[in-house]
């Protein structure tokens, strides 16, 4: 009957849309609570803060759709960030190689990031480790290596002059970081909606048997996703070094969980089978606005962490309730026919 009408307003019931409303509500709340929040400069700041979460979140969303985690992204970011900084400042002294140009160093560390992805992928697909264990191990290994490379020190001087461009400058009034994020969102949304990789990722997480009987090779897909996520973490590592204009082996501590929370907030369940890139993006925005807004209100960091936990649990409740409701309508539909 009013099928068309129903379809037109179906988006109102989408968890992603409700999440977006939560995001808007948080903005209004903070804007009314403190004059320091609702400013263009502050929003630019927030874009920078959320960039890394969104970029890495794109890969992490795909992984989680297949029911896999990557807890090594924070260490991966730190390791690639510190190696990138080291290469452009010192080169490779042991081999007598002079400081490398930014592009060369960037390509090298993206490869390193991808190799970490390969290792994660091998542990999971070839040796049958749970992704939680495999990537937890890789998290410690990566962090340790990052600290070892520079003996625990950070690198704060000797940078080439355009070192901070990507992280801080604008082109045509748009920050480079913003361009990176938009590119990542567009590419991964297309991957999700239009390619075999996206569809098969959903299929593997949604129903392993169905995927198997349809002749899909889950190992290949999961391996590919770990490599992509590793490479994305390296990109985030380069951007982080550039934004902070120094190299710090302790950067990105806890980053893996921030990404995880963004993905969960965005409606990708731990059990996989569904999820959207845009959901993760909104998840990342909520986390960022929450942290930034509470900061602006001069609320202690400790309480911010508490709020993060509450928001996460609240969002999961929201998502699971939506699912329950949907199931109910299905049951009714079944009996009606």
């Amino acid at each position, binding site marked *: 009957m009013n099928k068309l009408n129903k379809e037109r307003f179906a988006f109102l019931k989408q968890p992603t849309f409700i999440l977006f409303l939560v995001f808007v509500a948080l903005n209004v709340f903070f804007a009314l609570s403190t004059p320091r929040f609702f400013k263009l400069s502050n929003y630019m700041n927030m874009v920078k803060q959320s960039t890394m979460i969104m970029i890495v979140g794109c890969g992490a969303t795909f992984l989680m759709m297949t029911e896999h985690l990557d807890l090594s992204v924070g260490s991966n970011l730190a390791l690639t960030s510190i190696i990138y900084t080291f290469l452009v400042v010192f080169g490779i002294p042991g081999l007598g190689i002079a400081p490398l140009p930014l592009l060369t160093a960037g390509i090298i560390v993206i490869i390193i990031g991808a190799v970490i992805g390969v290792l994660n992928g091998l542990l999971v697909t070839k040796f049958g480790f749970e992704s939680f264990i495999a990537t937890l191990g890789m998290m410690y290994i990566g962090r340790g290596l990052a600290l070892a490379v520079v003996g625990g020190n950070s690198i704060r001087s000797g940078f080439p002059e355009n070192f901070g461009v990507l992280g801080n400058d604008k082109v045509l009034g748009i920050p480079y970081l913003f361009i990176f994020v938009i590119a990542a969102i567009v590419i991964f949304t297309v991957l999700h909606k239009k390619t075999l990789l996206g569809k098969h990722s*959903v299929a593997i997480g949604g*129903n392993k048997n*169905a995927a198997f009987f349809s002749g899909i090779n889950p190992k290949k897909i999961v391996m590919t996703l770990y490599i992509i996520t590793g490479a994305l973490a390296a990109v985030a590592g380069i951007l982080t070094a550039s934004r902070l204009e120094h190299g710090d082996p302790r950067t990105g501590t806890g980053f893996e969980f921030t990404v995880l929370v963004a993905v969960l907030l965005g409606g990708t369940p731990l059990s996989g*089978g569904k999820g959207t890139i845009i959901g993760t993006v909104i998840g990342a925005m909520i986390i960022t606005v929450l942290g930034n807004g509470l900061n602006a209100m001069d609320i202690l960091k400790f309480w911010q962490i508490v709020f993060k936990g509450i928001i996460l649990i609240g969002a999961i409740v929201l998502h699971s309730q939506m699912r329950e409701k949907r199931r109910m309508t299905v049951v009714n539909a079944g009996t009606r026919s």
Partner: protein
Amino acid sequence: MSNDVIIEVRGLEKEFPGVRALKGVDFDIKRGTVHCVVGENGAGKSTFIKILTGAHRRTGGSLKFNGNDFDPKSIREAMNAGISVLYQELNVVDDLTTEENLTLGKEKSKFGFIQKSDGLGKMMDIIRSLDDSIELDMPVDILSVAQKQVIEIAKALSTDCSVLVMDEPTASLSEDEVRRLFLTVKKLKEQGITIIFISHKLSEIFEIGDYVTVFRDGEMTGTKSVPEIAGYEDALGCPDTFDDKTITDACTELVRLMIGKVIDQAYIASESDYSQKLLEVKNVSNHRLHDINFDLYKGEILGFYGLVGAGKTEVGRFLYGIDNYEGDIFVNGEKCDYKNVIGALEQGFAMVPEERRVDGIFGQLPIRANIPMMRMDSVLSSGLISRIKENKLADKFMKMMSVAAKDREQAVAFLSGGNQQKVVIAKCLNRDADIIMLDEPTRGVDVGAKEEIHDIIRGLANEGKSIIVFSSELPEITHLCDRIVLMYDGSIGEIVKNKKDIDIDHIMNIVAGG
């Protein structure tokens, strides 16, 4: 070999370590027919299906498909040859659309980008002919179970399948949906597709089946045409639909083939005290059961018998506080209103569950730690677990049940099936409950241990415990039980008193729906 035989099975054997699941099976499946396969659990029908569909390899005999030897090494190989399976668990991805599900794994792609598939029109025609309410862009999770089945059927048919195996397709369907599935099956048959139909609901066979093969204990005990089993000489003169009486008689015949000759082990009456009614169940119904009424006396062994799916396990589940129900349970004349297992235990029930490995044992723990699990205070000493008490308890029960184990420290997972079951029973006895329920007490237990377990059960009854045994083995029931509750399709057909030469035919007739 005539051309109308599509699958020819000769002397087919399958041996698993320690078990002969198929002991040389011969029969033919004719092209374009609906061929039903029935049998109790463990009779070998699923082993046969698994060999046919490439999930298992045969260990002997031959299997011919379209006249050629057929030994698929994988499910895919069987599928490519034209044999597809509609599994009981649905293999659709809920978060993809109908179209995405139909093309899953067969997408046309360019540089990883999905292109429009050409086979889609054909699949859509198949779907439309089966159920015209399904649209290509519908997400599958809003569809009903029956509609999801249609999608799977369409998927199977799109790969030029000539044989479609349906594994209990009606198990989770409503009556309405079953009707529609049967229409689908008839349409597929018209298109010349051979259907192998596995079901526990015998009456379904007489609605859609052309032939039926019965398995028992790894052997084929009969392959007959449906008119033949319904008592007609041939298809001529056989009506399209049968009346209820004919179907019941025919089902009884099938049950006879499924169960075989019941070797009458001597029934020894226990010392039941029929003046003391311990348990009374009145008008209990729930989603699986209709109007269940029975009572249980002190020192009595009450048996529940019925075919798979008749509702035996469900009776145990509501008694044990697992499933909801409407109606009344009285223990010692008082109405009970416990809502969970803890309540049932406090009321004096204890249960030896059907799935021993899943629900019965703590496999990694030693025997000593398993036995006190249902009553921890039996091994507590000032609030802490006392090793001395644990050891004493373990020794007592291991001796009483003659559990064959290295020592009481052995992990239960490494014991034989029979000894595991003894540990589960010991765990249950330590509860010292008045009413002990045992669901399939001797499944997967060797003959020797079986007798020992029967003796233990008999001994308990003689001590004054009241026992309820749920079993799908008729000899066990007639050997052990004082009264037998016969179940059919969620209802009690009749409660019969056991005696030395009990009328087996009558029992078969009741459990077949008579």
